[in-house]
């Protein structure tokens, strides 16, 4: 075909196609209605995989088409206030540390009309006994406590008995999404089942899915339907930061939970009335030294280097100033302030950047400067530290960069070595590292988060990365954590957590740097009621809770 003919053909097909699709496209519907109802919200696709055509609503799939909205858990933990919100279970009770009873809510139906009962809950837990791949909470093995011995449904209650103390399993248990026995009961291994319908107890059901655009519609028979004001939710597209930012600004997306660099400038400034973001602290990034190696096995050295960490600069470079410096207590302040012992004030637990103090501490501890300005070990041998960081994780790299500069500033010869994340994981497993950055979970179950970071039973193994990467080994700490894991009394818990805080503040097993975020970037032109800095009623990841708070903006 000659060039001219080809051009004509392309032009013809272009016009034809443009005409057809122009007629077929759906223009943005009227988004606010009366009585607070919201017509439609658009979110990015939750399936992380590129081939959306393989629809699977099964929550066991590594890439389910939808994660939020179809299935529900027993209870929801608000990770900011630490309150437990009853959901499919109205209450729970521990008898000792080895018997847990849930009272199951009445009046709940599955989206195909079948009534929801305690038998569905028992089924969901029992299927994990037969098929370990379905046991995401680790109920039937020894993760976080003794394995379960039985799960039975008695009327509207579900009783779980364990072979020993299993209080730390609670977080995992309440988060399990409950499956319908009448559908999943006959498929054998539920992890191998392709769920094409997604019948759940949740507020929405699948209206249509064409492999790319998932449309959910509100269920009128949902157990708290009066709280759900969103009529339709559309999930479409996987966006990187640049695309997401453009779509949010143009109103094509209503909310996004991924990372957008400098959200203030790239999003909020475009329309401060409607564009907002809420980066709630979810945990913290901590500097992790290898405590089995000199000089990190010297508490005085660790204390000294804690003062060369310029957390303010880290915040600027890694998070555009959004995330705050973290407390050395290991607690997520100010949300977890109630766990802080009275001997500390919140401000005092956030260590300042104080080069002079660090130098004084290092000199006093025997790490004197040699003639070349570099510090040496107390016995005079040279001191050279390698800081491994995950290449490609730009926020980690920015933080590590500031940390290394701080160390070199006081004469500690440190080198930054970026490597592939898997190599860094391999270093964590083998214990062959000097310094690295790690994550300390800010969840509410302290035994599982701060506790497991300090417990000697949580050293990484050859095949698994576990929490205690720094290899803190102290029998007193182990005893405290074990007691905390078994405790259900609040006063006792506070005292034990206080002991862990003391260890963090005086012994510096890890050094807290910055809080790490759970992100929500959103618009308020179609829906209000999102959690925010002014009203942090729940953490951004609790989508079900947020959906019950959203309502149309009032017409003013």
């Amino acid at each position, binding site marked *: 075909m000659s*060039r001219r003919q*080809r051009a004509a053909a392309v032009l013809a*097909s272009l016009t034809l*196609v*443009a005409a*057809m*699709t122009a007629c*077929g*496209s*759906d223009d943005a519907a009227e988004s606010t209605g009366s009585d607070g109802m919201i017509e439609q919200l658009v979110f990015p696709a939750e399936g992380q995989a*590129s*081939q*959306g*055509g*393989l629809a*699977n609503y099964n929550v*066991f*799939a*590594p*890439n389910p088409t939808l994660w939020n909205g179809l299935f529900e858990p027993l209870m929801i933990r608000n990770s900011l206030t630490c309150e437990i919100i009853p959901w499919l279970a109205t209450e729970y009770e521990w008898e000792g540390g080895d018997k847990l009873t849930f009272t199951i809510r009445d009046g709940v139906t599955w989206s195909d009309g079948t009534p929801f009962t305690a038998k569905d809950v028992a089924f969901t837990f029992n299927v994990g006994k037969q098929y*370990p*791949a*379905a*046991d*995401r909470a*680790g109920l039937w093995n020894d*993760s*976080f406590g003794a394995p379960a011995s039985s799960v039975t449904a008695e009327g509207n209650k579900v009783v779980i008995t364990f072979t020993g103390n299993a209080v730390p399993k609670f977080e*995992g248990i309440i988060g399990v999404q409950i499956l319908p026995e009448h559908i999943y009961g006959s498929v054998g291994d539920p*992890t*191998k089942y*392709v769920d094409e319908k997604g019948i759940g107890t949740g507020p929405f059901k699948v209206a249509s899915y064409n*492999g*790319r*655009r998932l449309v959910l519609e509100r269920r009128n028979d949902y157990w708290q339907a009066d709280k759900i004001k969103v009529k339709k939710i559309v999930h479409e*597209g*996987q966006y990187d930061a640049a*695309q997401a930012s453009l779509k949010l600004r143009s109103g094509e997306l209503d909310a996004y939970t991924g990372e957008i660099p400098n959200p203030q400038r790239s999003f909020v400034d475009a329309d401060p009335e409607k564009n907002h973001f809420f980066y709630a602290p*979810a*945990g913290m*990034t901590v500097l992790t030294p290898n405590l089995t190696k000199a000089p990190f096995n010297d508490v005085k050295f660790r204390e000294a280097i804690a003062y060369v960490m310029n957390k303010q600069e880290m915040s600027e470079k890694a998070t555009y100033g959004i995330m705050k410096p973290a407390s050395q207590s290991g607690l997520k302040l100010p949300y977890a302030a109630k766990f802080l012992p009275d001997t500390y004030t919140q401000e005092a637990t956030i260590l300042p950047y104080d080069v002079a103090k660090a130098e004084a501490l290092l000199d006093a501890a025997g790490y004197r400067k040699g003639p070349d300005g570099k510090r040496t070990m107390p016995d005079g041998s040279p001191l050279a530290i390698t800081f491994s960081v*995950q290449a490609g*994780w730009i*926020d*980690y790299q920015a933080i590590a960069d500031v940390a290394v500069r701080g160390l070199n500033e006081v004469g500690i010869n440190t080198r930054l070595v970026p490597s592939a*994340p*898997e*190599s860094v*994981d391999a270093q964590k497993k083998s214990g062959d590292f000097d310094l690295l950055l790690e*994550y300390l*979970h800010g969840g509410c179950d302290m035994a599982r*988060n701060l506790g497991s970071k300090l417990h000697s039973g949580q050293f990484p193994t050859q*095949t*698994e*990365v576990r*929490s205690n990467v720094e290899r803190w080994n102290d029998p007193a700490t182990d005893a405290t954590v074990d007691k905390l894991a078994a405790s259900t009394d609040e006063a006792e818990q506070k005292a034990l957590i206080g002991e862990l805080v003391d260890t963090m503040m005086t012994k510096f097993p890890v050094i807290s740097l910055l809080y*790490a*975020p*759970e*992100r929500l970037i959103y618009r308020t032109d179609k829906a209000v009621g999102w959690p925010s800095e002014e009203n942090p009623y729940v953490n951004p990841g609790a989508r079900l809770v947020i959906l019950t708070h959203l309502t149309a903006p009032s017409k003013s």
Partner: protein
Amino acid sequence: MRYFARRIGFFIATLWAAITLNFVIPRLQPGDPAEIMVRKLASRGTGDAELDPAKVRAMRAMLGTPEGSLWEQYVEYLRNLARGEFGISFTYYPFTVSEVIGQALPWTLVLAGVTQVLSFLVGVTLGAFAAWRRNSRFDSIVTLGSTFLGTLPQFWVALLFLFLFGYTLGWFPTAGGYSEAMPGWNLEFIAEAIHHSILPAAVLMLTVPTGWILGMRNTMVMNLGEDYIRLAKAKGLPDRLIALRYAARNALLPSITGLALSLGGIFGGLILIEQAFDYPGMGRLMAEAVSNRDFPLLQTLMLFSVVGVLVANLIADMLYGVLDPRARKAQA
């Protein structure tokens, strides 16, 4: 005959080497698929997140750990390959690798296939004209222009087009292979698919023809200097006939084998273009498989890619033997 037999023998040897390397290389990478999956599920957005050991354990039970020594796994792998069983993908569990690739392949074949063929036709035609009118203004524009366009990074051009035609002017959709239509042989879907592929195709048509243009032009210029062209002109044959029937046809030979090779390469997908346009093709799949350490999927994709190129190479060699009698005669 010996020419063809040698080529087939070489093909089989290379295929075996490719299959073996295909098995070995993914396993040399550090990284545990179960941990990577759980990390992705847990931390949507943040770089690191506490790995819940209970979830990792369950994930590992689901994905299964390979049994037997490396040699036993290799033999099992060869056996499965012979049966056409490529296994179950980790990322898309419980769908099989064949199902997953079946979803992605048509998109890549159509986008890459059509643009490759069109680029070839456009490039070769432009190159031939440029050579025939060498040193004219047309020649300079085509040569310099295509060199400039061809060296522009595809990803940059893609983003530019996206911003200009997608967001600013709103003429074309900005993501996906389609948006609202139900996939299948219906007009709405086909129209949407075409509409969505215009921008990616435009980016490709801008940057890919360069190779063809320059190659064709240079080969033809060389051919035009040959004695037989001078004889044809001396004999009084019309210019057009000399250009098309003799010069262009001979100059086309290397380009044809190049076309065969590039068509073989499309099985690898166009990673950058697909990433920029959120296009569900093989390139995206490959990138996903690598980052998830999805061994079954990754092995099969690499296999497709390598086999595609090898087969194309074989076809190109055969084709050359058929088209150019000199090659056949020389080897015999």
